[in-house]
């Protein structure tokens, strides 16, 4: 029998969070690192999301975490030596009712107090920014000029290549079937092929984080939801900014190829978790996007797809060590915000794992917060239903 492989750190999940973490750990020279994914890298929500990026949220906790991320996005292509097509086109949260507008104003005040350069727009300014928008669908909004979009697949490949160059080993199509624990301590994992020894396992398994945690005997408070998106044939430029609409629970942008890409959540999220599309969802999206952009009613739908996400009770990610199981860390439960949060998620989790100290921006997202009554109140995230990035 050959001796089992040994790694200092094993990351479960080759999505944008797991790969960002692997890269950031390797930068800190933390020894041998392996990333395992049950499918191709970026096969989950990392390659299925809306590609939108902002830090303009409503709570101090979310603003601090996602603004750390936004700063990293600005130089990410240069840092990783790979064009991730980050475009600082601006991000508008649209208000369609007086209540929406009041919420935007409260959030904008908090954002400005924390140093974000966001500003309120009135209906006329929104019309000037997006002339194709239905004037009846808007009363204003809050605009973050520094927000934008990036190409999701490119971000996955960029982190993977940069991590490999630093010696990280990445194993696609290598599902983890067991997490080995001995007296409250991680000892290794078993893949579909072999046993692997390690003292540290990071659960970055996205929608499957709950299942991975169960392998280690840990129960996570995560609900899994499916979301659907559509993309149209390429169109002439008509939408220059990333746009989300809390009123329609919708988010959208126009890609560099000219396609309109967007998603919307129905009022009641579907319990069905397969990746097949539903007619109900495409009709809901067609109606909402047609209301926001009357010109889109004639645009041709090219493709529709689905992705699944795991959401925590307060809809914020679970980031940190698991109490009572030495060597087990979580980077999970991003609930649709993991793409925009990936530069910060990987950077801060690498700091936590190597230094043993919890970075300030990460502390509020510690996985124990529900047991200690410290759940985060993020006003732009209402229940399961809000705009996604």
């Amino acid at each position, binding site marked *: 029998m050959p001796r089992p492989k040994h790694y200092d750190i094993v990351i479960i999940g080759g999505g944008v969070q797991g790969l960002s973490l692997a890269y950031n750990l390797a930068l800190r020279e933390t020894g041998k690192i392996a990333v395992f994914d049950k499918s191709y890298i970026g096969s989950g929500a990392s390659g299925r999301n809306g590609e939108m990026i902002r830090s303009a949220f409503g709570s101090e906790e979310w603003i601090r975490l996602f603004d750390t991320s936004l700063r990293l996005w600005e130089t990410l292509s240069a840092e990783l030596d790979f064009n991730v097509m980050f475009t600082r086109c601006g991000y508008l949260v649209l208000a369609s009712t007086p209540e929406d507008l009041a919420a935007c104003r409260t959030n904008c005040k908090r954002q400005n107090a924390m140093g974000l350069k966001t500003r309120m727009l009135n209906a006329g300014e929104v019309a000037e920014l997006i002339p194709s928008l239905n004037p009846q669908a808007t009363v204003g909004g809050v605009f973050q000029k520094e927000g934008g979009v990036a190409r999701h697949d490119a971000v996955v490949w960029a982190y993977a290549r940069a991590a490999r160059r630093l010696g990280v080993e990445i194993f696609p199509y290598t599902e983890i079937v067991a997490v080995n624990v001995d007296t409250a301590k991680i000892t290794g994992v078993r893949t579909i092929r072999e046993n692997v020894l390690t003292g540290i396992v990071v659960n970055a398994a996205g929608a499957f984080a709950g299942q991975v945690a169960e392998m280690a005997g840990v129960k996570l408070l995560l609900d899994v939801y499916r979301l659907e998106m559509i993309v149209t044939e390429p169109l002439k430029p008509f939408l220059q900014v990333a746009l989300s609409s809390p009123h329609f629970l919708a988010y959208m942008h126009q890609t560099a190829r000219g396609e309109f890409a967007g998603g919307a959540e129905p009022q009641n999220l579907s319990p069905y978790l397969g990746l097949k599309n539903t007619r109900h969802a495409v009709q809901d999206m067609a*109606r909402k996007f047609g209301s926001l952009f009357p010109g889109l009613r*004639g645009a041709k739908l090219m493709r529709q797809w689905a992705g699944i996400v795991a959401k925590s009770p307060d809809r914020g990610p679970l980031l940190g060590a698991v109490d009572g199981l030495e060597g087990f860390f979580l980077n999970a439960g991003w609930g649709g915000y993991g793409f925009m949060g990936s530069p910060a998620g990987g950077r801060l989790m690498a700091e936590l794992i190597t230094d043993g100290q919890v970075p300030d921006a990460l502390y509020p997202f510690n996985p124990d917060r529900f047991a200690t009554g410290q759940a985060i109140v993020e006003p732009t995230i209402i229940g399961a239903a809000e705009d996604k990035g």
Partner: protein
Amino acid sequence: MSKKMVCFCQDLTDADIVRAIKEGYDHLETLKRFTGAFMGPCQGKMCAANVVKLYAETTGHPVEDLRIPTMRPPVEPISLGSLAPEKGGDDDA
């Protein structure tokens, strides 16, 4: 390599596909996302046979072992307006 078009939506030649495979996009799912093949208005209906054959020849994987990327709806591009009639929608389908 001669210049042969393999994907008419994204103007991909055989050389584009082979270069992408050599750069490490060596699985059909990553090749699709890197080159844009299967992702244009034809959604793979014109390019799939070309791309899969070329992929099999370049990588040595037998064609019959390959899983072609999921064909997503709709079969042909259709207008958003036809999916969301302004009156009397068809919600309960």
